[in-house]
């Protein structure tokens, strides 16, 4: 067979590429997969995301966290305005003290845990923030005021907090004790940080990596109890189900 000219070869190549580009999945099957992914009925995956440019992602995450912090602040303010002067100030979240109220991930649970005087129902009401909160009753008037100082909302602070958390996470595989130490530093430096909930999850991973099962179970129970919207429950269960490394 005679050799093809470069032009003929190019034409052939283009035909092959065009055939590849024209290929489509079956529309019905694709729709079914779409529904399964969106409805949460698809089999879950344990695949970790691939390495991907991290710099921009960090800022994206920081921005998302900032929005979350603002939402938390709004809910907090709506619930607490008009209350009596502070008589008890809830302590900062210190992961080493299991009985301490922990950092939750959602606004309602955050309030319930940050202040034992807040009834769970009241905290739940803080979720969809009302336009005009109902007048406080006698019970709420005696509640201690939570500190007015907001959690970190400065992007720089958020970035620093995120960096510290990334540092803690970075130690997980090689040195879980260092993770705990870094998390303790996080709790000291960001006692009301916006990423406390995430820090608790990292702490749970570290405790499990160290084989501190009882401590891990206690922490997991608190995390799940605080997880009103089910945002953390699955991650906690997954971590507990993970075989020892």
């Amino acid at each position, binding site marked *: 067979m005679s050799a093809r000219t470069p032009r003929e070869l190019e034409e052939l190549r283009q035909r092959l590429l065009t055939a590849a580009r*024209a290929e489509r999945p*079956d529309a019905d099957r694709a729709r079914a997969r779409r529904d399964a992914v969106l409805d949460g009925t698809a089999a879950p995956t344990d695949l970790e995301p691939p390495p991907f440019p991290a710099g921009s992602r960090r800022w994206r995450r920081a921005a998302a966290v900032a929005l979350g912090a603002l939402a938390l602040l709004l809910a907090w303010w709506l619930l607490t305005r008009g209350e009596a002067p502070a008589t008890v100030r809830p302590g900062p979240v210190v992961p080493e003290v299991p009985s301490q109220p922990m950092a939750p991930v959602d606004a309602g649970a955050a309030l319930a845990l940050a202040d034992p005087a807040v009834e769970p129902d009241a905290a739940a009401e803080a979720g969809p923030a009302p336009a005009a909160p109902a007048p406080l009753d006698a019970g709420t008037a005696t509640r201690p005021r939570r500190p007015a100082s907001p959690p970190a909302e400065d992007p720089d602070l958020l970035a620093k907090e995120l960096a510290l958390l990334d540092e803690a996470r970075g130690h997980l595989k090689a040195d879980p004790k260092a993770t705990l130490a870094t998390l303790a530093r996080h709790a000291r430096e960001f006692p009301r940080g916006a990423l406390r909930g995430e820090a608790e999850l990292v702490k749970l991973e570290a405790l499990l990596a160290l084989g501190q099962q009882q401590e891990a179970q206690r922490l997991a129970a608190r995390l799940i109890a605080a997880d009103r919207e089910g945002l953390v429950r699955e991650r906690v269960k997954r971590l507990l189900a993970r075989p020892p490394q």
Partner: protein
Amino acid sequence: MLPLAAILTQAQLGGRPATSLSAEQRARLGAMFDAHHDLVWRVLRRFAFNEAQADDGAQQVFLVALGRLDALQRDKERAFLCATALMVARKWRSTPRREQLTEELPETESSSRPDEEAELRRQRAVLDRILAKMDDDLRSVFVLQEIEGLSKRETADALGIPQGTVATRLRRARVAFDELLREDLGDHRP
């Protein structure tokens, strides 16, 4: 049938269940699926997935994306999804053959005429035969940029390499492809 999902997954979720997504996040994931599912599926096909495997693999890719929805910039979606598809392909190929039992599905109905469709299938078979002989690094660049039309930057992001390396690999990939095509023509005339 043992679906790819069963091989690649365990009872664990990388992100969060879709049911916990906000309306906005759900809309974004749906839009992402609509915009890029075919691309992801085709990338998997070019890495030797049959149609059923590509269905499963693409679903895996979007489940991974679901777990990273908040962190994912919109202009990086295609690159991220392609990077994930390549990861799924690598994982799939590292799975022992005896477990890869996913059945071939019946041929997809096409709007093309039967003879046209047969010709397209034959051309794709030639293409895949050639791609299978290419070095993985070259094959990835060739599939993403030459076939699927990702930009140099997107390809670089997806593969985690500098754009200059993408350009170099693409040149080498084209040369390799033409050589393999010539070689293939000796036995199979496209």
